[in-house]
């Protein structure tokens, strides 16, 4: 495991980011298996500011806010320990790592972007219906943590890597790998794994900037990647200047095709993200900048002179960068004068070594170098560059004396692209460099096309995930449907059968629903179903899943035994009874009958449990409705 080693090496430096204060306390606490929700919420409450932030986070991540959550205990059970824990880690890191030693790493901007990504991922999760909003927020917040890790451990070297990549995410991954044998995606995933985050979340962090095989990944991972990827682009727009923003917009536009959002809806989601981002930034003391309305960014991006491939467009107006190399000053001066006259952006190096250093740090498009130079000669420069990933894309022209023309074969073996004989004829030099420029431009075009292709694939992945999700979602209430329930039940039964893991079922039927339909019409009936579904969803916890089985019938699948299910059933019955639904002439609270059953050791199959919960509902109806009946298996003698 080479990668594991690389991460262990990072760890050994003792400079990896680690959360201070409550973050660390929670990390330690959750290392043990037997921590309780009370332990966690107690730790959070030692910090009043954090308490407020966690409540805000929880309320904003819930899809239906019937009644806001006001206690940390409640917050922890509603959105789940994992998400709360991750967000606490993230919040603690923000204050501890607001500055650092890596010069090229903009810490303020890093957190600003991370926060925009967190808010964006949550919003998108809510609008597209992929992934769990709280998880999307927490992963969005920490998905860039690998970059912070590399900046903390290798501050000086990482500055160079950042400079070289020019801010292009994929180039950054490449150069990180060259320099550290680990990139920020991998480092981030390792770090989060180290902190005990679920594997599907760690995988997602690893894959966000990468092409990957969806077949090989869990559904939860794919959903997170899809949502956070789109959020990453939107966050980039938020922190970017207006000129770059409109370029990135094209990529967002591509990714949008996988979602169910219309262009206008996406724009409105983005504007909401900016508002919420600024709100959060103020609370967490993170910098933000002004972002124009996204409708303006879109207009800039779709102006006709814009090239259809965003990457090429980005660099189109910038002149080609040429590095001129010669140890002999008259020739060098003449060469660089000639190249400048032809409109290139020229830098000079007076020897092979100097050229190599400059080439690796500034990555010119073209190098025109003399062959014979003391120290490192032109060929050696070329060979050395070709061994580096960066050097492979540079177009290299070598200058050679007439009498060396026979030796040019050797030069091509060193992977030069072209040669010009000295003293050069300006017209020939111009023609050769221009040919090189065309090659460089074509390569850029190919890279841009590839990146466009990748965005298309990413959009397709989102679409696929969404379709799959749709096939498991009830369109009227947006709750998971019967098919989902049966899959979920199958898994729960499997775990029960293998290792006795407990689970319980609450079968729910709306009382006198037919009367609502008959007296008030089907529109009202639909509204009652939607509203009831929302209350049920809102009142259940992370370990309890509500599904609509069909008609007026719902099922709650609870991880855990009877006690939890009983409490849940009681909560649901009361909330529904107290929830007045208004629609047209209809203005009343409905009631529900609930049947509770749990998997018992005598059960032979899932059907036994389902049958008991069905029977329990019938009994509740017979007993007068608006009540809960619990049925255990008949005692075998």
């Amino acid at each position, binding site marked *: 495991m080479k990668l594991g080693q690389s991460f262990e090496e990072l760890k050994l430096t003792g400079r990896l980011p680690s959360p201070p204060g409550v973050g660390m306390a929670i990390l330690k606490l959750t290392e043990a298996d037997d921590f309780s929700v009370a332990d966690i919420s107690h730790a959070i409450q030692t910090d009043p500011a954090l308490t407020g932030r966690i409540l805000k986070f929880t309320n904003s991540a819930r899809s239906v806010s019937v009644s806001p959550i006001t206690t940390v205990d409640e917050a922890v059970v509603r959105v789940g320990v994992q998400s709360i824990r991750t967000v606490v880690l993230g919040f603690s890191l923000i204050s501890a790592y607001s500055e650092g030693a890596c010069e090229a790493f903009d810490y303020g901007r890093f957190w600003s972007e991370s926060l925009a990504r967190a808010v964006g991922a949550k919003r998108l999760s809510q609008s597209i219906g992929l992934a769990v909003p709280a998880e999307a927020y927490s992963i969005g917040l920490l998905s860039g943590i690998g970059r912070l890790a590399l900046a903390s451990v290798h501050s000086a070297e990482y500055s160079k890597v950042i400079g070289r990549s020019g801010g292009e995410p994929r180039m950054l991954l490449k150069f990180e790998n060259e320099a550290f044998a680990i990139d920020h995606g991998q480092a981030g995933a390792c770090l989060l794994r180290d902190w005990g985050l679920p594997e599907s979340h760690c995988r997602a962090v690893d894959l966000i900037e990468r092409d990957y095989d969806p077949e090989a990944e869990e559904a939860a991972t794919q959903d997170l990647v899809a949502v956070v990827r789109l959020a990453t682009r939107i966050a980039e727009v938020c922190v970017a200047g207006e000129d770059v923003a409109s370029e990135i917009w094209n990529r967002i536009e591509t990714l949008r095709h996988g979602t169910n959002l219309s262009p206008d809806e996406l724009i409105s989601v983005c504007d909401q993200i900016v508002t919420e981002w600024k709100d959060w930034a103020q609370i967490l003391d993170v910098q933000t900048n002004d972002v124009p309305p996204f409708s303006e960014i879109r207009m800039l991006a779709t102006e006709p002179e814009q090239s259809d491939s965003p990457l090429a467009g980005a660099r189109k107006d910038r002149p080609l960068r040429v590095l001129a190399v*010669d*140890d*002999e*000053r*008259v*020739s060098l*001066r*003449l060469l660089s*004068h*000639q190249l400048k*006259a032809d409109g290139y952006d020229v830098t000079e190096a007076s020897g092979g070594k100097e050229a190599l250093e400059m080439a690796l740090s500034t990555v010119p498009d073209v190098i025109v170098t*003399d062959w*014979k130079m*003391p120290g490192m000669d032109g060929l050696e420069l070329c060979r050395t560059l070709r061994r580096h990933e960066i050097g492979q894309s540079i177009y290299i022209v070598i200058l050679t*004396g007439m*009498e060396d023309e026979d030796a040019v074969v050797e030069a091509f073996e060193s992977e030069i692209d072209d040669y010009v004989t*000295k*003293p050069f004829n*300006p017209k020939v030099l111009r023609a050769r460099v221009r040919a090189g420029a065309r090659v460089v431009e074509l390569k850029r075009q190919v890279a841009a096309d590839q990146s466009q292709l990748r965005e298309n694939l990413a959009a397709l992945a989102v679409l696929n995930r969404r379709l799959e999700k749709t096939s498991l979602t009830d369109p009227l209430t947006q709750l998971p449907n019967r098919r989902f329930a049966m899959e979920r039940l199958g898994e729960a039964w499997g775990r029960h059968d293998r290792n006795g893991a407990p689970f319980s079922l609450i079968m729910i039927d709306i009382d006198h629903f037919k009367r609502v339909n008959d007296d008030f019409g089907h529109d009202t009936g639909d509204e009652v179903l939607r509203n009831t579904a929302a209350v049920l969803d809102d009142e259940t916890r992370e370990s309890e899943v509500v599904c609509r089985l069909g008609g007026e019938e719902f099922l709650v699948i609870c991880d855990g035994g009877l006690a939890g299910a009983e409490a849940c059933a009681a909560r649901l019955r009361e909330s529904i009874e107290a929830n007045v639904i208004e629609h047209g002439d209809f203005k009343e609270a409905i009631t529900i009958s609930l049947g509770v059953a749990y998997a018992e050791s005598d059960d032979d199959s899932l059907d036994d449990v389902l049958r008991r919960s069905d029977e329990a509902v019938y009994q509740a109806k017979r007993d007068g409705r608006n009540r809960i009946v619990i049925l255990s298996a008949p005692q075998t003698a």
Partner: protein
Amino acid sequence: MSDQHQDHESPLDATVIASLMDLGGEPLLAELVDLFCADAPSQMAELQEAAREGDAARIAAAAHSLKSSCANLGAVRLAELSRQLELAGRAGTIESAADVIELSRVELERVSAALKEHLS
């Protein structure tokens, strides 16, 4: 190439000078001449030193540098002499190198004078 008549002709190829003037006018030419006059004497000294020590490789390297700079300025005869020196150095046949270097030294003086004349 050791033609006596050349002594009376200009040591510079007028077309090269003209093309330099085309490219960058007086300022570029002046800059290149300055660089040449600053560097050529030390390249010459390096050649002489290398010849005294009988170091063929060093002769080749120094001659190569001198050749490039004078070729750029149209000092064709000096470039040709340097080329012969470079080839001899590379082949290791440097018996007559000292003589050629002496010819080059004289030629360099003519070239420098001619270049300065061009500028005034």
